């Protein structure tokens, strides 16, 4: 196998060098190859990510001391709004399905592409349009939107800023997300390799399958809700305006009916990625295959019915409050099942502590902190105390950044050799991990503390007693930033001058490791036939002996 990994080897042309109908840059921009589309997502999302990171750092700088530090209050409102919109709608919701899903879903199920390659390219351009509109809303027209990413009415119907831009951006991004989900569902249904029954499918595709259904079934609700807010602004249609008989709380319901399941759009693929990493770096079959996939589906299902926990203080009835609180606690069960399975997978394995595994383990750690504090928030009495404080901010950054973000980094370190055919520098990767992990915890942990003490979220100013926490948090932010830069530097450098990667550097057993690195244009010369369950590290396995 390893002699085929050489890019220049005449045996095959890698997808990176394959040109197709068009030459040069167009061979990328117009390519319907799922791998190239995956990389285009990767590059665009990285750019937008750093835009949003810089906005976040500016907010942290502002908060380093009470009172005005570097910006006006209105600027601050604009910053946290657009930071949220970019991070949520442009990065965490689409990133994992769009980057790794596109690149690896077809390969892992033994297909040559997704079911609808052209639609896939179309989704990318929808995504790009939405993302650019989102960033433009910050500059064009009547000033940056200042509603927060949640667009709560009545303020979002009245604010004189560019809210329509941002709403349209989110609407388009939602549509792109629907099409990607739809594409993946059909791909998984129709294009699995011969012999790959549902229960022989690796768990990352399973996670994408669950995610796909949420994307398809929840996103239209936000679509119509955003349209209603636009109608509210343009036509004063009155659905959410009490002075015309409407109901602002109705908006909150509609918004969270989508936006809570959206949290599972973010985290399920992340869980899928680490589920791939643990068996490979323990050289052991995944523990509890069926339990993991059922818990994915269970999370997706129950996730639909917990939206009310965002509204405990909005005046909903006592009955619905305990109902939503109860269901919120139920979600903890499948999540915990996954954690136990990951740990049991490592137990007794021959653990190889490479960067992907480091990130995956820190994923568990950070995700658990995020998860437990989620239970604090889901408990009715505690919720009243910490509602809309920086405790909430810390909680969801632990889940979204500590969970989904670190899983993305894990996936990047895991699949980088396959995607680009080069190895990265392990030492730099380990150092960057250390900096990221330290910086992350310094950045967000203090926010739990000051949150419990009463620091509100989205405030430009604060009482002096919170300053220590804010200073630590800001320092952490900059440490994290250094770590991120170092990590990206490592990737960019390795992509050019890294060691040539073998086909299977980690001795993985899923299908993507059975083809050369980087993969040929059509992935497989001959579509493989699947004869065993996934994660079969048998002694007959040729990868182990190499």
């Amino acid at each position, binding site marked *: 196998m390893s002699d085929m990994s050489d890019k220049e080897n005449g045996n095959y042309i890698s997808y990176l060098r394959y040109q197709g109908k068009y030459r040069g840059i167009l061979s990328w921009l117009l390519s*319907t190859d799922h791998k190239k589309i995956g990389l285009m997502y990767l590059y665009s999302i990285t750019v937008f990510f750093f835009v949003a990171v810089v906005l976040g750092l500016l907010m942290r700088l502002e908060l380093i001391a009470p009172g005005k530090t570097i910006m006006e209050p209105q600027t601050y409102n604009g910053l946290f709004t657009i930071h949220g919109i970019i991070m949520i709608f442009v990065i965490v919701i689409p990133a994992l399905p769009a980057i790794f899903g596109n690149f690896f879903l077809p390969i892992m199920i033994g297909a*040559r592409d997704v079911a*609808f390659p052209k639609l896939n390219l179309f989704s990318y351009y929808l995504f790009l349009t939405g993302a650019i509109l989102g960033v433009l809303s910050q500059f064009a027209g009547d000033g940056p939107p200042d509603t927060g990413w949640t667009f709560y009415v009545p303020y979002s119907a009245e604010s004189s800023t560019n809210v329509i831009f941002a709403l349209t951006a989110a609407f388009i991004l939602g549509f792109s997300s629907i099409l990607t989900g739809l594409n993946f*569902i059909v791909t998984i249904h129709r294009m699995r390799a011969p012999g790959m029954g549902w229960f022989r499918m690796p768990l990352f595709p399973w996670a994408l399958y669950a995610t796909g259904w949420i994307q*398809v079934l929840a996103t*239209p609700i936000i679509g119509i809700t955003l349209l*209603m807010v636009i109608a509210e602004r343009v*036509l004063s249609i*009155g659905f959410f305006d009490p002075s015309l008989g409407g109901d602002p709380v109705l908006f909150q319901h509609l918004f969270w009916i989508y936006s809570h399941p959206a949290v599972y759009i973010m985290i399920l693929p992340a869980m899928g990625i680490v589920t791939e990493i643990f068996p490979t770096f323990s050289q052991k079959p995944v523990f509890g295959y069926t339990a993991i996939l059922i818990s994915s589906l269970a999370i997706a299902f129950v996730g639909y019915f917990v939206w009310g926990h965002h509204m405990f203080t909005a005046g909903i009835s006592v009955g619905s409050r305990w109902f939503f609180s109860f269901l919120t606690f139920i979600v903890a069960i499948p999540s915990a099942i996954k954690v136990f399975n990951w740990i049991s997978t490592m137990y007794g394995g021959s653990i190889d502590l490479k960067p992907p595994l480091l990130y995956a383990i820190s994923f568990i750690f950070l995700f658990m902190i995020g998860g437990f504090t989620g239970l604090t928030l889901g408990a009715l009495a505690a919720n009243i105390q910490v509602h809309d404080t920086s405790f909430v901010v810390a909680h969801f950054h632990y889940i979204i950044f500590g969970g989904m973000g670190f899983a993305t980094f894990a996936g990047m370190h895991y699949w980088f050799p396959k995607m680009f055919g080069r190895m990265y520098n392990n030492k730099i990767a380990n150092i960057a991990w250390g900096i990221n992990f330290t910086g992350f915890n310094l950045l967000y942990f203090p926010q739990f503390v000051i949150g419990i003490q009463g620091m509100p979220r989205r405030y430009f100013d604060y009482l002096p007693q919170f300053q220590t926490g804010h200073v630590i948090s800001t320092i952490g932010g900059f440490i994290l930033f250094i770590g991120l830069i170092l990590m990206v530097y490592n990737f960019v450098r390795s992509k050019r001058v890294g060691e040539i990667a073998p086909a299977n550097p980690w001795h993985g057993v899923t299908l993507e490791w059975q083809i050369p690195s980087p993969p040929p244009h059509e992935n497989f010369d001959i579509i493989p036939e699947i004869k065993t369950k996934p994660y079969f590290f048998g002694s007959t396995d040729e990868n182990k002996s190499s």
Partner: protein
Amino acid sequence: MAGQIPHTEQTDSEAGKLGMWIFLFTELFLFGGLFLVYAVFRAKYSAEFHTGAAELNALIGTLNTVFLLVSSMTIAMSLTAIQKNKLNLALLLITVTILLAALFMMNKYFEWSHKFHYKLYPGSEVMRNLPHGEILFFGLYYMMTGLHAVHVLVGMILLSVNLFKIRSGKVTSSNFLLLENSALYWHLVDIIWIFIFPLLYLIT
């Protein structure tokens, strides 16, 4: 053909249909949001919804329902026609479908402009002075029928594309996925109207 993509699209018409069905689900959920809002306000302001509905012209609504139901039938027939390789019949039936859709839109146009004439549209002075329930009723009326009309237009475009594709031999008796999916879409447009019609016109 050198360098041409031999990109074997492993896709099949089953996949195409499955994709379409899933897409139709998302459309149902899109309208579902509006139906939800309708349900909430109908429960809150049921009396005013009745007076609001009395303002709507049930005759035009019924006519439009008939147009759409018949058009659903003709598009289904065109699908059968193409399967039996009767291309001209299929073309004719699709054209009839498009014409029925145009009649629907024409009615809609007169209906809306009639209301505009009385300055009964969201944001207008007249509308503002109505009781709350009626404001919301007409808001929903415009939003639901408006979004539905957009779908009718999209459906008409899709069907017109089919006309060209059949003429140029891209849609044939063995390869009619595009027509089948367009017909599915058209049925969706129809079924949503089946719900909108009684909820808005017949609740007096």
